[in-house]
């Protein structure tokens, strides 16, 4: 996908989001739907215009297309998804530092020493914040606690 197509996809997503709000507003009571409709309808009109412009431009050749960057972006989005999954499974004080270790080793090609040092440091800080400052369960939020 080139840059201009990607822009069109983004604008489409924004248009659909606004349209979703507008449609959902019609199911609300009269008082509750006033503000969303007053804001949503003009916003929908403006974003639809932007979509039309972007869709027209998407048919033009794209001199700024950078395929390598696009691959890199998708790779990074995958890593972000993994961050959420690890935090969900292992809790934030363990899952997030674990993610950091994996990222530093696999994507950033750092040494094990540096990876372990940074992730351990982060884990210690997070555990201190959770237990001493916030006084909440370190596994709080993780899937494990849903079944406890």
């Amino acid at each position, binding site marked *: 996908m080139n*840059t201009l197509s*990607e*822009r069109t996809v*983004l*604008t489409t997503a*924004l248009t659909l*989001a*606004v349209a979703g*709000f507008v449609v*959902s*507003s019609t199911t*609300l*009571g009269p*008082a*509750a739907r006033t*503000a*969303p409709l007053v*804001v*949503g309808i*003009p*916003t929908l009109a*403006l*974003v639809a*215009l*932007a979509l039309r412009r972007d869709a027209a431009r998407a048919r033009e050749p794209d001199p700024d297309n950078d395929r390598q*960057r696009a691959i*890199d*972006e998708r790779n*990074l*989005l995958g890593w*972000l998804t993994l*961050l*959420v999954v690890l*935090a*969900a499974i292992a809790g*934030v004080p363990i899952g*997030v*530092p674990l*993610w*950091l270790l994996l*990222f*530093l080793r696999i*994507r*950033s*090609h*750092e040494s094990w020493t*540096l990876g372990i040092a*940074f992730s351990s440091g*982060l884990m210690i*800080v*997070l555990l201190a*914040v*959770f237990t001493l*400052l*916030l*006084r*909440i369960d370190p596994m*709080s*939020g*993780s899937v494990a606690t849903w079944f406890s």
Partner: protein
Amino acid sequence: MLHHTLAAAWEGLWLVLAWPNVLYPIVATLAAMVVAFLPGVSGVTLMALAIPFTLFWDPLSVMLLFGGLVGGATFMGSVTAILFNVPGTGPSAATLIDGHPLAVQGQAKTAIGCAAMASAMGSSFGILVLVALIPVMSEAVYAFGAPELLMLLLWGLTTIALVGRGSISRALVATGIGLLLSFIGQDPRTGEGRFTFGSQYLWNGLSLVPVMLGLFSIAEMIDLSVSNRATISGLSRIDQLSGNVREGAMTVFRHFGLFLRSAAIGTCVGVVPGVGGTVASFLAYGHAAGSVKNPERFGKGDIRGVLAPEAAHDAKDGGALVPVLAFGIPGSESTAVLLAALLLHGIVPGRELMTNQLTLVFVLIWSLFISNWLTSIVGLMLVTPLARLTTVRLQRLAPIGIALAAAGAFVNAQRFGDIVVAVAFGGVGYYMKKHGWPRIPMLVALLVGSGIERNLTIALRLRELGRLDVFARPLLILLAALAALNVIVPKLRAARIRWKGATA
């Protein structure tokens, strides 16, 4: 009255400076600074923790300690915003708009120096106004009803939406989306749930902190990761960094008029209960971007874009004490916890406190003053080692930034959904930046949207019932005029430049 106020101020100052009383605000400030460095963890957490420890302390000690805690938490969030684009607190999000680009340009020291001085002087301004308002505190709080608050928030929103660079229609769309996102939760008038889709997470609306961390911190880290830059500043050694602390600090004096206006905005917003420092920072930023003569560099690393929000953010502290001391109404989250601490120690806000216990009030004020200056001084001492971080390889720093942002999103309210929101908005924010969609109007609209709807509901209802006479509310007219000028003047200025260019 003046004599009584001055005598109480003098006595309060001596009480604070006496040994070992002065240790309380110092220790409190340093503790708050350490805590505030972590994204998502604010000084409010520390204040809440301090309450049970201080339950049987005398009122004097309580005022000394909490003055330090209120003042100590503000600056360090700005440091992380400037260096890593990770706002430590909500108000710091306005600082990062120009602060982080300055760090990217190797000017981190200048930015932090400016932030430190603006912060300290802004808080001093807020405290001066607080003291001046002591005889008329009630009237100051009464001046801001729902219509005035509505106008204040609209001023901020229109400023950000209409005076920014780039496509106005895209800015308006981003503003609209932000407003729609702010409607998630409950309708303020009927309590009916909106756009919650049965989710308890969404029942209370989208929280600002995870959205902010995602839209800015995570998005920027993604952008830096996929870019060709080696480090944040593009430089590999600390001695290659340009700019210096003194130059940054002197910026406040070179743009003293802007500083005064920004601090005034922050103080006024602080007086209005329930608005908070984030609105103050963005309002001041928007005002700066719309009022200066050559705003082209705003958003790209204009030092005035650091000065304005920092001055406003810290000036807010003084203003926020007005409603809490006069009425027991918190003006911000930190003053809400302060209020709990006061009530727990039998210190009841109101006329009694402001007349017969004025010395105690000044102990709080002086403790806050010392705390704010101490925060800035210590922050300046840490500038060089902190600025060094902008020469660290991005492949190391970016994942740390993302990890801290995700953890900060969770720590904010301890809800797992906040991590999902932060990461999701991180992706959205990245692509918005890549394809020229502005993010700031979306964030500001999310911040002020529910307040606008709530106050608009009240104002329209008051008008419907014949209880709102616009012409009998001079502050409302003033705010409306300021809002209009802030939008019209830059357009006139731009038109004038174009006309001059055409006729030259």
